[in-house]
């Protein structure tokens, strides 16, 4: 089956090659990397960490955020449960520095700058890639040159065999937390050049799970041991997505309409005497985006556009607290044009220009009504001398905010360069040395600037400088060892003008200031091994380890000066072993997050224990003629560890999930 799929893919590439498609490099990675490296038309200078295809499906993950835990350098903030918020922090630089790109266009949230990756299910996702710094590709929107770290999610693109005109797939998942999650995918070949796909999903869960707090006193005697049920963590959400893909002479186009609707309870912190809260959130996220790419001889152009509307309705119904009923509406319009010219086979240059408009309306007292206009202009060049590859880019960003009925703050502009290079010293090109330098920034969000009473419209962008050096070893073989990949990187990041909450006056009143200074040193090590030790038995082993020392160096007078910043462990890592034998599959994954501190000061009152979980899944494929089926049983947190990722947000004990997929 794999061989067949490989051929299919190679065919797919052969057909796409002349198109010099924008995401050709992405698409190649659908399969395991072995067959890929040989055919890939153009590799990025520093390849991404990636999870894709079947491997991704077997990874015991509810959402994209869960899958990202297997990447090195990443810390996921998880507030627990199916509906709990999950955000990602790459290399300790902060969630707001992470760009999240969905099918080629970056997702935005001008209000708080954070994308809840718990909202993105893996149902329709074909590959997730993580790039440190930017994707080292020069034909991309200007915005893609901007983030300090980027996550690219790519949905499934239809591939039809000769004689096929449609695909159908239906999936149903159920399990712990009262989970019911049916989904369906229809792929249609409309004409020889145009295909469509329609994907829909419904997820409902009570979000209830048992958690346990157990404490002993220093003498070792039991102090308390209590088990309770997590309440108000329910979710009811739908996702609908419609894609149109087309090929034209020398190019292709893509159009997407997306809608996500959810109602969620906000479970809140578990504190003494409070085991249930009354906050609820309704989200409606809709967007339409289009992409067009075409090559004329040496010139290639890529155009992107997007219109997004996000509505968030937040209600606090708790009788004991302040009544809140707020509605936030965000709109975004994004236009991008990226253009590349190849002077020769080894030298290319690109220029991209993006225009983005954001608006926020909040029916909250004292919240300004901001509009933001962002202009981004980038220039990049790539030199490919075979074993030596170099790329340089520069991005200029101009931000203009407009406030209704108030004086607008002054415009902000930032210039951020980046240099990427890799060198393969060995003739067989198995081994590469790579390095990058990048400056980036994050704009203060609307909340930072204009939130009632708390915002500070004088904020400057928060800036990051990254230095990275690493090695990668790759080997592809035909014998028992199909593929080996080892990589190691060391990095130094420096965050300046970090936007932090600063107390003003009394009563938990805060304002935002450019006050923080963070010094980050780290190392990422990852390895991948694919083996065929026996006939029909495939083994994939993945391992990843991250060391991070991220310290606060803001002010020697602070009592947390040179202490590790909150929620960043010194050590973390994961290991995955995947076995597939005939139609059976077995996956074991282990995640380790070392001890960390839940506040700035590294004292015992703020100490948070390490956590580590083991997840296991078993799958079985069944085929009846044209119909193929897969059953998947997952057991998560096998040893039922009681842990908190975030203080006072307890995580579930052992839980399970069953998935049935039928595909025609």
């Amino acid at each position, binding site marked *: 089956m794999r061989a067949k799929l490989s051929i299919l893919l190679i065919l797919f590439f052969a057909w796409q090659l002349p198109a010099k498609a924008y995401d050709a490099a992405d698409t190649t990675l659908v399969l395991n990397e072995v067959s890929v490296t040989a055919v890939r038309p153009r590799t990025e200078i520093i390849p991404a960490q990636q999870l894709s295809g079947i491997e991704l499906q077997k990874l015991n993950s509810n959402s994209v955020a869960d899958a990202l835990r297997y990447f090195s350098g990443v810390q996921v903030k998880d507030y627990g449960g199916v509906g709990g918020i999950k955000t990602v922090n790459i290399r300790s630089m902060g969630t707001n520095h992470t760009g999240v790109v969905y099918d080629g266009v970056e997702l935005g949230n001008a209000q708080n700058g954070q994308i809840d990756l718990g909202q993105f299910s893996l149902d329709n996702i074909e590959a997730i890639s993580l790039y440190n710094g930017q994707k080292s590709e020069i034909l991309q929107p200007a915005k893609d040159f901007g983030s300090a770290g980027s996550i690219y999610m790519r949905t499934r693109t239809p591939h039809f065999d000769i004689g096929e005109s449609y695909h159908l797939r239906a999936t149903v998942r159920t399990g712990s937390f009262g989970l019911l999650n049916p989904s369906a995918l229809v792929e249609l070949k409309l004409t020889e050049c145009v295909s469509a796909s329609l994907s829909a999903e419904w997820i409902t869960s009570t979000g209830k799970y048992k958690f346990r707090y157990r404490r002993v006193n220093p003498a070792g005697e039991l102090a308390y041991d209590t088990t309770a049920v997590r309440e108000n963590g329910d979710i009811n959400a739908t996702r609908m997505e419609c894609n149109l893909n087309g090929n034209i002479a020398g190019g292709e186009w893509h159009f997407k309409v997306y809608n996500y609707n959810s109602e969620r309870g906000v479970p809140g912190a578990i504190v*003494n005497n409070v085991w249930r809260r009354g906050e609820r959130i309704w989200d409606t996220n809709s967007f339409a985006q289009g992409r067009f790419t075409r090559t004329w001889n040496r010139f290639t152009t890529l155009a992107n556009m997007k219109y997004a509307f996000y509505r968030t309705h937040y209600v606090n119904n708790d009788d004991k607290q302040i009544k809140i009923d707020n509605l936030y509406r965000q709109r975004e319009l994004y236009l991008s044009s990226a253009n590349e010219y190849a002077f020769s086979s080894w030298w290319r240059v690109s220029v991209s220009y993006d225009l983005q408009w954001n608006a926020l309306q909040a029916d909250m007292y004292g919240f300004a009504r901001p509009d933001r206009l962002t202009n981004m202009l980038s220039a990049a060049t790539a030199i490919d001398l075979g074993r030596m590859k170099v790329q340089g880019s520069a991005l200029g960003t101009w931000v203009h905010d407009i406030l209704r009925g108030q004086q607008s703050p002054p415009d902000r502009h930032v210039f951020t360069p980046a240099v990427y290079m890799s060198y393969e010293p060995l003739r067989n090109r198995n081994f590469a040395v790579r390095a990058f330098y990048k400056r980036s920034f994050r704009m203060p969000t609307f909340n930072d600037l204009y939130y009632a009473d708390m915002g500070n419209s004088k904020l400057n962008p928060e800036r990051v400088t990254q230095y990275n050096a690493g090695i990668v070893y790759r080997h592809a073989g035909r014998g028992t060892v199909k593929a080996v990949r080892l990589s190691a990187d060391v990095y130094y990041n420096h965050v300046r003008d970090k936007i932090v909450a600063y107390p003003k006056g*009394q009563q938990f009143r805060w304002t935002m200031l450019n006050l923080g200074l963070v010094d980050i040193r780290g190392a990422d090590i990852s390895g991948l091994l694919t083996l065929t030790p026996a006939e029909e038995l495939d083994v994939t082993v993945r391992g990843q380890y991250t060391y991070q020392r991220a310290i606060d160096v803001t002010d020697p007078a602070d009592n947390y000066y040179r202490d590790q910043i909150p929620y960043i462990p010194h050590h973390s890592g994961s290991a995955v072993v995947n076995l597939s034998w005939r139609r059976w599959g077995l996956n074991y994954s282990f995640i380790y997050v070392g001890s960390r501190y839940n506040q700035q000061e590294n004292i015992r009152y703020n100490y948070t224990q*390490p956590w580590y979980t083991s997840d296991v899944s078993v799958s079985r494929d069944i085929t009846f003629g044209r119909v193929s089926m897969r059953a998947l049983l997952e057991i998560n947190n096998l040893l039922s560890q009681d842990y908190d990722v975030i203080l006072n947000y307890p995580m579930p004990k052992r839980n399970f999930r069953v998935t049935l997929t039928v595909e025609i």
Partner: protein
Amino acid sequence: MTIAFPMKHFILIILSILPLLTVITGCREDELVVPSEYDIIPESPLPDTSIRGFYLVNEGNMGSNKCTLDYFDYFTGLYARNFYAERNPSVVKELGDVGNDIGIYGSRLYVVVNCSHKVEVLDARSGVRIGQVDIPNCRYVRFHRGKAYVSSYVGPVLIDPAAPKGAVYEVDTLSLQVTRKVTVGYQPEEMEVVDDYMYVANSGGYRAPDYDRTVSVIQMIDFKQVRQIDVGINLHRLKQDRYKKLWVSSRGDYQSRPSRLYVLEKRPGYNQMVVSDTIPVACSNMAIHGDSLYYYATEWNQYTASNTISYGIIDVRSREIVSTNFITDGTERDITVPYGIAVHPETGDIFVTDAKNYVSSGTLYCFTRDGRRKWSVRTGDIPAHMVFLRR
């Protein structure tokens, strides 16, 4: 196998990642109820003193469940951080979320834990728990004739579900049961009892910008609100001096209307309190000792993007500002955000707490009555409210 890389090593590396991690960094251990930490303070009790020590409540940031109780004993000279958890290890999730007030009545210590919606009752000498009284969104506690009175942001929801008025709960100090409650203004804060009438400062903080501006007057015999006195917006502190005058602070609206301090007193021959004076100073918190009212104020300045902090003394008889800085040795520069103030009833030592950035350990500073720093000690998060324990 003829590959470039020694296979065995590779497998070894991969498989060693897993155990290596736990070796380098260790496994989980049993979670401890974090024990107290002790610091030695260079302080000795006065001869024949009636004060044994004091308790300090650290509020802890919202949602952190880090409200802690510190205790200092003048006789041992030891300052204990996180005293509650050590004395009461079996209480699930410790003292709770956001402490807001503390008081001693008889042999019992009362800690108001705002976001845990309870008043924790301890034995004042040992710190051992006696029980708790559940009161939603409780704020401050005062005592009168065998009863504890607790102000709460939440009164009966039925009156106006969109903007419920606050209430004062009456708690029997023996049975720890709520006996009565009375609806007052919006989001009531501090209270005092003068001549069998209770005066309650209403803030209306949940209704910004339509703040409450009244002091509620409760007749204690039948526990009814008999009147509301118009004073100023967003009232917070309310203290009585020894001449039965009330000193009431307004937080202002944090923008155009500044914080102020008002004086309420009875005109000769009348039984009704009226506003008799407005002191033109900002006041965040105050403590009265004899004829001196010690206050500090923290005001945010938009233009300099910094807090303007002032420390002063008012003579309660003349209502004159007699000092614009009760810290005389210049050490007020070390204080980031003053958050609590208290005066030792015998020595007149002035205590000021520093809440720093709200999410790290604070500091308690002790100054002599002439304003020189005597000592300081690390506290829990957001040190705020103090009460002295008598021998």
